[in-house]
């Protein structure tokens, strides 16, 4: 009980205090409140993760009934991820927001919302009552919306924020339908009745119910085709909020899907195949579009969709394993998904924070204007490089570990599979490989164009590294990334409890990852050390060999061209030009072009704007059609007061006369019947 009071009181008191303090005071209060809440909930989370679930029943209200709080291993895992991301994001944001010190009111609002966002995210993991869950969900959606529109004087930001707001409410709509469905059938809002409902009804109904929840959570998670809000919201938000959104906000969707899998008893194979298909599409489509982007944060946002796809592949495999009673596939699928959730929250928040550093110094995110930043911001460049390697799934970093677990699951499934499963394996493996290859292309482009080469644009301000206080949280994340890559077994073993929840659904025998192909992780960790050692040794030999030799610095070889400019460098667009042409039928790229003509050509320009084909089909076209249809009724709204009064009178007459008419008709019908 003391935990709950602490959890409620700390943010409440902080929120009351923040508006009345000076700038420094606000910062201190937000930080202490976030840290205290994080410590408090992390204690519960560790208990849950070690197999002692926290259980508490609050009296609740007349409508909601008793509100049950429950922190099991799954909640614990997600709570730890949330706390870590919010803490690093908060400390990073502290320095990042210094640039906005002239807007104290805006900042106190932001501090309040940040606390609310943290509290709602953490509580979502514990609440086991649908009404309380929806309220927390709404607080989360609204506080995230207000955090996104911090720079609300910009039109693009407001637009992105409203897009986010609408889509989060569509998500809530689906969740509400699901919860009301269960509540209307059982008369209780507790999560446990979802299980009893699905156990007592046919599996088709359970699947329908699951799909409602899945759609709701998938919008939040950003599965294709529900992903369209992501590429707008992430670039619009301040860097630490983008990092947190990508790191944990979309993961709460993943948490919801996993929680519903635990609660709803359904045909897991069917559900798994549905999730797997969507996940593969998300993964490949996300990274394919990411390559085209010129805006650094938008590029990262599309990569979030890709990584949600990889997590989804894990969940799908886990479900199929559960459905077919294949304990190896089940455990490795869910373990891969859960570990990749952590991994993605680490490297993606690091990428967004470093992108924030770039934005802070250059005031632009257009990668075609950047270049050569590695010399001015070497630490930011190094951190970005670590995260980029990790997101591409390259050893010895953490992304490789979770992808390796998924591969092992897939290849182990192969021995017991029939032809349809084999085709599924084939498609999934190819998708994972393609995602990896495309990610390498995307991040060599992003890193190469932003940080390497010569500057492509002269900035009026001085370009310099951000202060060290802003870099410390980033080093912490990078340290975690390397730690997971180097000691994967430690992190995998903490996943035993959460995975047991899933294998427990069908009472599959699962005690540890021993004998499931995961001994390989020890070898991988050895290989990682070996690789590091190798690099150090070769580097040392190189140093020795160059010690007494001449090392000259000269201009880059230009094929004899004598006046090189930074404009002759390969740009981001030219780097991916062949790729764009190869897959042009999948993309929608708007071009604005004025070609060079005549003997004395005037200024020409060429501009491309990549757009999302799915967004055009699924969002833009239906909205346009709806608008056109509703436009036909525009004559009603003609701006003349007389008409409006007439509408009012007509309305009153209609209300009075329709029941009367109805009565008359009914009397007439009765009369006819009596005849």
């Amino acid at each position: 009980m003391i935990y709950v009071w602490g959890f409620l009181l700390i943010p409440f008191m902080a929120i009351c205090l923040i508006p009345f303090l000076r700038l420094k005071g606000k910062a201190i209060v937000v930080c202490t409140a976030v840290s205290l809440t994080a410590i408090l909930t992390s204690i519960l989370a560790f208990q849950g993760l070690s197999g002692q679930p926290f259980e508490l029943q609050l009296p609740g209200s007349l409508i909601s009934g008793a509100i049950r709080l429950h922190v099991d291993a799954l909640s614990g895992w997600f709570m730890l991820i949330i706390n870590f991301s919010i803490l690093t994001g908060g400390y990073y944001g502290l320095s990042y927001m210094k640039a906005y010190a002239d807007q104290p009111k805006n900042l106190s609002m932001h501090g309040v919302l940040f606390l609310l966002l943290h509290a709602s995210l953490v509580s979502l993991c514990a609440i086991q009552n649908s009404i309380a869950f929806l309220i927390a969900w709404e607080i989360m959606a609204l506080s995230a919306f207000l955090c996104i529109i911090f720079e609300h004087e910009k039109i693009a930001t407001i637009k992105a924020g409203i897009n986010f707001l609408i889509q989060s409410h569509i998500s809530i709509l689906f969740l509400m339908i699901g919860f009301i469905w269960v509540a209307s059938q059982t008369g209780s809002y507790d999560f446990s009745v979802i299980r009893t409902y699905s156990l007592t009804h046919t599996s088709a109904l359970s699947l329908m119910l699951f799909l409602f929840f899945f759609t709701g959570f998938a919008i939040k998670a950003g599965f294709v085709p529900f992903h369209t809000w992501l590429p707008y919201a992430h670039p619009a938000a301040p860097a630490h909020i983008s990092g947190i959104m990508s790191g944990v906000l979309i993961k709460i969707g993943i948490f919801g899907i996993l929680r519903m899998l635990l609660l709803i008893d359904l045909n897991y194979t069917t559900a798994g195949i549905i999730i797997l298909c969507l996940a593969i599409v998300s993964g490949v489509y996300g990274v394919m579009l990411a390559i085209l982007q010129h805006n650094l944060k938008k590029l990262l946002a599309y990569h979030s969709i890709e990584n949600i796809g990889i997590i989804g592949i894990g969940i799908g495999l886990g479900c199929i394993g559960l459905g077919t009673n294949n304990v190896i596939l089940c455990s490795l699928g869910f373990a891969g998904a859960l570990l990749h959730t952590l991994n993605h929250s680490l490297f993606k928040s690091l990428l967004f924070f470093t992108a924030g550093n770039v934005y802070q110094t250059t005031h632009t995110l257009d990668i075609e204007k950047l270049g050569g930043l590695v010399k001015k911001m070497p630490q930011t460049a190094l951190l970005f490089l670590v995260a980029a390697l990790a997101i591409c799934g390259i050893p010895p970093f953490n992304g490789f570990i979770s992808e390796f677990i998924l591969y092992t699951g897939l290849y182990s499934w192969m021995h017991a599979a029939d032809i349809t499963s084999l085709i599924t394996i084939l498609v999934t493996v190819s998708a994972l490989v393609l995602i990896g290859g495309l990610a390498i292309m995307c991040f060599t482009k992003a890193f190469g164009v932003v940080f390497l080469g010569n500057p492509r644009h002269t900035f009026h301000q001085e370009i310099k590294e951000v202060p060290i206080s802003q870099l410390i949280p980033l080093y912490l994340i990078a340290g975690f990334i390397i730690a997971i890559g180097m000691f994967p077994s430690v992190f995998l073993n903490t996943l035993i409890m959460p995975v047991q929840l899933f294998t427990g659904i069908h009472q599959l025998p699962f005690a540890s990852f021993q004998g499931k192909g995961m001994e390989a992780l020890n070898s991988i960790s050895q290989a990682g050390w070996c690789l590091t050692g190798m690099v150090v040794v070769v580097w040392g030999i190189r140093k020795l060999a160059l010690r007494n030799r001449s090392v000259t610095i000269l201009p880059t070889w230009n094929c004899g061209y004598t006046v090189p400019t930074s404009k002759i460098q390969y740009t981001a667009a030219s780097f991916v030009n062949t790729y764009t042409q190869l897959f042009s039928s999948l993309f929608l790229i708007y071009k604005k072009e004025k070609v060079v003509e005549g003997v004395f050509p005037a200024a020409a320009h060429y501009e491309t704007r990549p757009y999302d084909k799915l967004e055009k089909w699924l969002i833009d076209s239906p909205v346009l059609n709806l608008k056109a249809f509703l436009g036909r009724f525009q004559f009603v709204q003609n701006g003349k007061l007389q008409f409006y009064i007439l509408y009012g009178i007509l309305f009153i007459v209609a209300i009075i006369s329709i029941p009367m008419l109805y009565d008359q008709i009914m009397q007439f019908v009765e009369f006819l019947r009596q005849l």
Partner: protein
Amino acid sequence: MLSLILILLAATFFTGIIIRTKSIASGRKGPGIFQPLKDVMRLFRKGAVYSETSSFVFRIAPTIYFSSVFMAMLVVPFGASKGIISFNGDFIFFAYVLGLGKFFSIIGAMDTGSSFEGMGASREALYSMFAEPAFFILMGSLALMTGHTSFQEIFATLHLGSSITYALGVLAAFVFLMIAMIENSRMPIDDPKTHLELTMVHEVMILDNSGFDLGLILTAGYLKFAIYGAIIFDLFSGSISYGYAIPLFFVMQGFLAFVVGMIESFMARSRMNHNAQFIVVLSSVALLIFFGALLVSGKFI
């Protein structure tokens, strides 16, 4: 351990034989087969020239590229004898650790700010992306046929018995050879001896590398050839005793080098925009092997 020594030995003469074959085929006497080795030794003793645009990335990239290829080599077995590192799913590690090298060679090229090197980097990124699925499908098919997921176990239990398996073995050898050609930027994807920067892929990426770094990159290239040669040898070696297998290994490597030399002598490089299609064809061949593996293992309904 055995595989490490043998691959290192094979790497000393592999590229030399290619060059020798090419020179004889074009009517020249050509350099000795250890000439590439001598070139590298000379490079290791030289100083270095760096571009003023480049940063630490450019300096460390060749080191990491070489280390990644070296790590990949440690995974490859020789017949039934394990590589130094061997575990279930080590071929995944093999492909991804090579990815590390690729990543660094690409960003190393981007670091010079040269338009040519950016071009090469862009092509390398695209081609290697297309080549990966073929490798994974092929290894998956072999894993399906044998029921194992590590290089050594797959090759140790791979028995080429029936005519179908021989056909599959030949196809697999073809795919591996082509992957080796793509990885090493050879014909028909790339021509290492072209004189125009615009038509290069790999060579243009290392235009600015010199001295020790260039030596590392060249050595890594020689190693890569020998690694793939060893994998192709493993496909057929089965359970031949070492007394025969070791000489056979060198004969096979020599023969592969000869084949590569002949391909390079009598084939023109594909047009740049046909390369992507060519590489996708490899994935289809790998798919063919996959369905063949289904037939062999009796899973085709």
